[in-house]
Every structure is written in structure tokens, then in C-alpha cells.
């Protein structure tokens, strides 16, 4: 009989980060089950962005703490993850936006995030290539940044494997059994594993996985596309955001970015020319010099979205079934802090940030939704 202290469904950042903190806190008998290859879900498809410029206390505090952990990861993981604090420059298109973001900045400052409103001239000092004709200023946070998803996946994989975590890839969770109202085992297409705790970090598969044990998660999958260019000389340090558009330059010199197509929920992750047209139009308006830059690759992935655009983390109705899903497009940046919170919950029975307690599944039953307004691409 194969038994584990903790079984984790999903080999994306949620699963790997949770295993990382479990291992760090002394729990070594951990199993990650991934139906495809590691990073094959949204993590390997994401836009690399890590920001603290949010509009709710929950998101701002969690991201402030996550950035501290990203720094720790950058300094301590053996395999380089290319975490860089190049900042996020959020271009504001009219006075109404400016007024709104001044309020967000106040809130972020109160919670310890050093955002500031900057002028067109200051924008030019940070990124001289930005066309400022149709903007009035920007919200700028120099400690936001990005990291490279597949390097993060590799770094965490090497770490957790060296600590004794077992990773099974190309194996799919098909069933879950309960005993006395608690999870007892997980059945895959290959084997059966007994466990004390089960973590649902299954991304787009989280809803289906919870349904096996009759837990309803209010999640919907939305397709989001993204594109990368040929490699260029380093010229762009921050992530640039303008309306629905976002883009930055990776450590390999490529411009990477996306924009929102405002589609209805779908499980499709095919790509479209419409997306390229919208992205190209918006990006070239923002930095005209990008017009002649060649596109290398385009792909799509899913945002797994909750009704209030905040993740569902922590305990569920079944006390040994732990949730880490529904990030609504922010799960990569939240990865470190969510992993640490979930590991703490498993070990100590509590998450160490009060803001995290507002993000459990309970809020939907109790009608305590939190609205996030700063959702992009």
C-alpha cells in the first residue's frame, strides 16, 4: 500500500510551491500527481508578471508577502528563476483613470507597497520609447517584476525531489475515496495512493476534481492568448500595462505580452488572428518602434476565474481537502505565498495571514465576496 502525508493534484506552481514549503517545514512524504508534464497547465503559458498593484487589501497584502518570497526564491534556489524587479508601469489614459489610480496608490501605500503616480516625463525616463501622446501619467511600482515560469518549475522540481517529494507525471487523478467524511485515497489511471491530506492545485481541472467528492467550486475557464517576439537587445525593464494590454521583455530578450479579447467562458485553448490584430494594434500604439519586430510564437491558456476575481485557498467542507485554485489570472505571482499558506494550514491548522482567511470557499456561502478591479489581459 502506497501512502503519503500529503498528495497534491497538479504540477503547476501551486502544486510545486506547496510541496516546496511542506518540505521546508519538515513534511517530506509528499506526492505530486500531474496528468501531463510539469508546467503544462496555465503556469507554463502565463505572462510572467508579478505585481502588487491591486485594489483590495487581500490581494495587496498577499502579493506584498509573495514578492518577499520571490526574492527569497531568487536568492536561495539553486536553479536560476530569473526573478527581476523591473517594476510595473501602469499607463493611465485619462483624468478619470488618474483619479481612480490615485486612490489605489493611497491604499497600496498604507499597506506598505511603494507605488506612486508619475508624470509623462518620468515615464520617459523609465522607458524612453513609450508614446505618451494619449496618456496623462502612470501608476508606477518599482518593486513589481517578473520571473520565468519554466525556470521556476525546474527550480522547484529539483528542490522538492532532492527533499524526498515524489513526482508522477503523465498520470491522471480519476477518483477520490472518502472514509468517515474525510479523504482516504486518490485513484489515478495507474495506481492508488492513501493520504492524510489532499491538495487541489489542478488549475482548469480543479472544478472537476472537487466535483468527484461533491464539492462545487464556482470556477469558469476563460481563454487568454499571448505572444512572444524574436529576441531583441535589452531595452524594456518593467511590465507595461495600458487598458487591456500588457507586455514586457523576458530575460531571453523577447517581448512577451497579451490583451483581453473579452470572450465568454470556454475550455478551448486554440489561438486566433483576431488576437494578434488587437495586440499588434495596441502594442505598436504604445511603442511605435515595435512595428518592425517579428512575432515568434503565439499560444493560449486559461484563466480560472471566480465570481469575485480572488483565488479560493485553504480548507474546504472536507477538512483534509485543501484548495488552491481560481486565481483569475494571478496564480503565478501568488504561487509562493499560496504554497506557504497551504503548507502552514496543513501543518498548523491555520494560515498565518488574516487576509488569507477571507479567501476561503466559505465566502461564497456567506456572501462575502471581494471585488478586484485591476484585472488585465
Amino acid at each position, binding site marked *: 500500500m502506497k501512502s503519503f502525508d500529503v498528495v497534491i493534484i497538479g504540477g503547476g506552481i501551486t502544486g510545486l510551491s506547496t510541496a516546496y514549503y511542506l518540505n521546508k517545514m519538515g513534511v517530506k512524504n509528499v506526492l505530486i500527481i500531474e496528468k501531463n508534464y510539469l508546467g503544462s497547465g496555465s503556469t507554463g503559458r502565463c505572462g510572467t508578471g508579478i505585481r502588487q498593484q491591486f485594489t483590495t487589501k487581500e490581494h495587496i497584502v498577499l502579493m506584498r508577502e509573495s514578492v518577499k518570497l520571490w526574492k527569497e526564491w531568487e536568492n536561495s534556489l539553486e536553479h536560476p528563476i530569473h526573478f527581476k524587479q523591473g517594476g510595473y508601469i501602469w499607463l493611465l489614459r485619462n483624468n478619470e483613470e488618474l483619479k481612480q489610480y490615485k486612490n489605489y496608490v493611497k491604499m497600496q501605500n498604507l499597506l506598505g507597497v511603494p507605488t506612486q503616480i508619475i508624470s509623462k516625463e518620468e515615464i520617459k525616463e523609465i522607458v524612453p520609447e513609450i508614446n505618451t501622446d494619449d496618456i496623462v501619467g502612470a501608476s508606477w511600482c518599482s518593486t513589481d517584476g517578473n520571473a520565468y515560469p519554466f525556470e521556476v518549475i525546474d527550480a522547484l522540481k529539483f528542490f522538492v525531489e532532492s527533499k524526498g517529494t515524489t513526482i508522477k507525471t503523465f498520470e491522471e487523478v480519476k477518483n477520490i475515496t472518502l472514509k468517515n467524511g474525510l479523504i482516504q485515497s486518490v485513484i489515478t489511471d495507474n495506481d492508488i495512493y492513501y493520504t492524510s491530506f489532499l491538495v487541489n492545485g489542478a488549475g482548469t481541472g480543479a472544478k472537476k476534481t472537487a466535483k468527484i467528492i461533491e464539492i462545487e467550486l464556482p470556477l469558469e475557464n476563460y481563454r487568454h492568448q499571448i505572444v512572444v517576439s524574436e529576441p531583441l537587445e535589452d531595452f524594456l525593464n518593467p511590465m507595461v500595462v495600458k487598458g487591456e494590454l500588457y507586455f514586457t521583455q523576458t530575460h531571453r530578450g523577447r517581448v512577451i505580452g497579451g490583451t483581453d479579447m473579452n470572450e465568454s467562458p470556454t475550455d478551448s485553448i486554440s489561438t486566433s488572428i483576431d488576437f494578434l490584430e*488587437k*495586440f499588434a494594434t495596441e502594442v505598436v500604439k504604445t511603442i511605435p518602434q515595435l512595428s518592425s519586430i517579428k512575432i515568434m510564437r503565439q499560444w493560449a491558456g486559461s484563466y480560472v476565474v471566480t465570481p469575485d476575481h480572488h483565488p479560493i485557498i485553504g480548507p474546504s467542507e472536507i477538512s483534509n481537502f485543501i484548495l488552491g485554485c481560481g486565481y483569475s489570472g494571478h496564480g503565478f505571482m501568488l504561487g509562493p505565498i499560496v504554497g506557504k499558506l497551504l503548507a502552514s494550514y496543513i501543518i498548523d491548522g491555520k494560515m498565518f495571514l488574516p487576509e488569507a482567511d477571507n479567501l476561503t470557499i466559505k465566502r461564497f456561502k456567506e456572501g462575502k465576496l471581494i471585488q478586484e478591479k485591476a484585472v488585465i489581459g
Partner: protein
Amino acid sequence: MNDSLILICRCEDVTLEEIKEAFNKGFKDIESLRRHLNIGTGPCQGKTCIPLLEKTLAQLSGKNEIETISTRPPESPVPFGVFIKRGKKE
């Protein structure tokens, strides 16, 4: 010939030796190898190297069947400017 001199991916400069090392570290399928080594992500988008990688991988894993991957648009690099919607309102 020395494996470190056998270039499988010219665009991203990946040698047979590096592929073998990665395979031994547990990167045993094309998609994982592609992400780990960036093989197949250069300007030719793997047109030259992916078939070679498929063959190498079949040999390393002792399998007869060859795994293939999805190709991603665009087929060959095109500038952003080509896709701009001119005159249209946003």
C-alpha cells in the same frame, strides 16, 4: 564524435550532450525538454531540430514510436506591423 560537439538545435545552440544530460535528470518527453533546454524555440521554430530530437529521444528511451508536438502559429516570423488594423477604431 564527442556528443558535446553534435549540435541538435542550431538556433538555440543545444548539443546532443545537453539533451542526454537533461534526459537523465528526468526530462524525458519532447515538451519538457523543449521548455528545459529551449530546444526548438528559435527562429526556425524547431523545423530543423525537432525531428532530430524526436529520433534521439526514441533512441534514448528505447521506444520505437516517435512522439510529435503541436506546432504553434505563425508558421514563420512576421512583424507586428503586419497585423495592425489601420483606420479601424479600437
